[in-house]
């Protein structure tokens, strides 16, 4: 990556399996137990889809101060909790040098619905000035920035499927270019009833196409029939190795490259007839002068169209010794599809390299063509 080198020195996650720092995520990954279960938050009896990976409310409540929790929406609490855990894991302090990048797909739809319902019930008098700010998608970043003292750039990126990995890539660039001394970067989304219901009714969730295997998250499998939604937040702390060394931080891994691009395709479609000239994976491989990756995580989440597209794109880019990395590993069966999953993939890759797994490629592709690629290596 041009500019300064970037290392990962902290990790915080609140997901359906676990909540905590690097050790908590390592434990959940080692256990390998899927957190996908029947939906508890709302009734799904009338839907074909009935599964999700939900964050336990008691766990979340234990992570956020009760007074703060009363005035914060659930998605803000998820983001806030994971950012605080990441900062604690890295033992880093806030200030003018600390930045924040938050990726999200849906933002705080719950607040948008509540705000609209106030109007529908009571007209202009029913509109809540307390709820309105939450309808702007950067509120999660605003709340977290105040909590962790992030006064450098605080950026919210909106993107489907790869919001978390895109945020980490952008965060790495901010550090590499000296725009921030350190950046907390990751993603967050919550399970929202209206989105779940609508996606299920549109056939966008498993069991989208039916089949004997029924509902489930089976990325790249012959019987994949749609994603299963999850929720949660995962954030990483990124900084230069010099700064990490100077403050005695324990480095987990290095982000050696981060790139992203666009495969021109119609909105929400998962195919393109155009040549993918801007392949971020090709850019990564070129900068690595052909050195292969030992492992690859992908965004495939059981959506057959996305799975097949990712497999085809990677097969074109990863040839020779890296060809057997296709199809890539997916973490969606463990944690469900949500805006924090991309950052969780980067976190998993960082922990892999810390344990000596060799360089890892974290790849992402979303309907509509947003494509991400990060190379994670062992800290030198």
């Amino acid at each position, binding site marked *: 990556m041009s500019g300064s080198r970037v290392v990962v020195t902290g990790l915080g996650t609140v997901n359906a399996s676990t909540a905590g720092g690097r050790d908590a995520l390592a434990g959940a990954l080692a256990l390998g137990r899927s957190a996908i279960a029947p939906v508890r938050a709302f009734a799904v009896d009338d839907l074909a889809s009935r599964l999700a990976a939900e964050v336990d409310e008691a766990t979340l409540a234990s992570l956020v101060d009760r007074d703060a929790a009363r005035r914060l929406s659930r998605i803000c609490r998820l983001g806030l909790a994971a950012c605080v855990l990441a900062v604690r894991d890295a033992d880093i302090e806030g200030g003018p040098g600390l930045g924040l990048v938050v990726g999200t797909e849906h933002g705080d739809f719950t607040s948008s619905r509540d705000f609209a319902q106030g109007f529908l019930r009571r007209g202009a008098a029913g509109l809540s000035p307390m709820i309105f700010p939450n309808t702007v998608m950067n509120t999660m970043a605003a709340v977290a920035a105040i909590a962790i003292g992030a006064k450098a750039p605080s*950026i919210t990126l909106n993107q489907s499927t790869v919001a978390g990995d895109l945020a980490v890539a952008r965060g790495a660039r901010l550090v590499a270019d000296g725009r921030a001394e350190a950046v907390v970067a990751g993603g967050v989304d919550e399970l929202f009833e209206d989105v779940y219901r609508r996606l299920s009714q549109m056939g966008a969730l498993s069991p989208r196409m039916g089949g004997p295997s029924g509902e489930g998250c089976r990325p790249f499998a012959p019987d994949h029939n749609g994603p299963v939604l999850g929720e949660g937040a995962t954030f990483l702390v990124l900084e230069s190795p010099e700064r990490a060394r100077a403050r005695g931080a324990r480095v987990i891994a290095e982000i050696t490259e981060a790139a992203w691009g666009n495969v021109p395709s119609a909105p929400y479609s998962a195919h393109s007839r155009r040549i993918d000239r801007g392949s971020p994976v090709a850019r990564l491989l070129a900068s690595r002068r052909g050195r292969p990756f030992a492992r690859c995580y992908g965004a495939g989440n059981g959506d057959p169209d996305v799975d097949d597209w990712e497999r085809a794109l990677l097969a074109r880019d990863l040839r020779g010794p890296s060809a057997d990395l296709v199809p890539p590993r997916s973490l969606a069966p463990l944690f469900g599809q949500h805006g924090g999953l991309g950052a969780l993939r980067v976190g998993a890759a960082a922990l892999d390299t810390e344990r000596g797994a060799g360089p890892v490629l974290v790849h992402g592709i979303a309907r509509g063509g947003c494509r991400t690629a990060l190379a994670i290596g062992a800290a030198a």
Partner: protein
Amino acid sequence: MSRPGGGGRPDVVVSGLGVVSPYGAGTKSFWTGLAAGTCAIKPITLIETEGFRSRIAAEIPAEAMASLGYSRRRSRADRIALAAAREALADAGVPAERAREAGLIVGAVGGGMLEGEEWYLGETRGRPVRSIRALRSILPFSHAETLGWRLGLVGPKETVVMACASGGASIALGADMIRQGVVEAAVVGGVDALTRICFMGFNALKLLDPTPCRPFDRDRRGMSIGEAAAFLVLEEAERCRARGGRAHALLAGYGMTTDAHHVTAPHPEGEGMIRAMRMALDDGGLEPRAIGYVNAHGTGTPQNDRAEALALRQVFGEGGVLVSSTKSLVGHTMAAAGSVEAAATILALQHGLLPPTANLERVDSEVPFDCLPGTARPAEITAALSNSFGFGGQNVSLVFTRP
């Protein structure tokens, strides 16, 4: 912190401009309106306003929307974004093959919410809208999807949601991509169409003036909302020159900071604003005295204008720079505001004419600056700064100079 990017970084120029504003479609109509000091804030026609404190906004005229020629199946925001981005690319004249490799960064907040609201109101009132197409474009990232597809761009694509600083942030982040050598050119800017949620929300916060907004006026009572799309083509200066392209301005530097103080209110002493402006000046290697004009965030709310005036005084000294607010002319165009006002700043540099602050009659004693009331003023300036601030304590300052 050391100067970002380090030595030897490439210069970034603005080689293309495209605007769809309450004055109509096209950069020419935008500049004509600004130069004439025409306030485009009028009674709202797009959405129902009965029972609200403020019932005015700066809407894009219906005839301008019709002239864009895009299908109404696209969201209103997508249509104006496409028109503005296409104008910017045509204005830049970047060869098609190079344009394809450009990055795309879109600042957005409301997405296709106007159409989503119609769908939602139909559902909840028992009159369901048959098509659910509106839902597919409801999220902010839908604009980047549409632009990336219709313009055939393969470079990095991002949607930045930083409230009212989104458009300014898109320009800053696009410039970084060029400076880092990731791309040679980038299409950057912001878009927002009028939405009920925005209109109702700011009404609920009592932040809207019932009459057209009066930034920096002693009797100001809030802002007026608007809608627009403005896109810029940024290019590496040397490559632009080599292909014989014309640069509107040099993007000399930017600063981006966060207050980390309050979710909606700015820091009362403008601490984050001061850092953003100083960072932008430092990034561009300029002293405050080099700046001849500041296109202020200037919303017309008591809090913002007071904090911004305090910050300007800290950076430039009392009366140290000419200041005006474009929002008094075209309203607060939300996610588009940063790029709309960047375009206004660049055009002011080009034409040697500073757009005025409309509706300003009695300048607040806490605003010790010449805020150019009523009439545009000729001024041969060589550098100007554009401020964009937003909910969440987001601060972006951009510095442009003559190429």
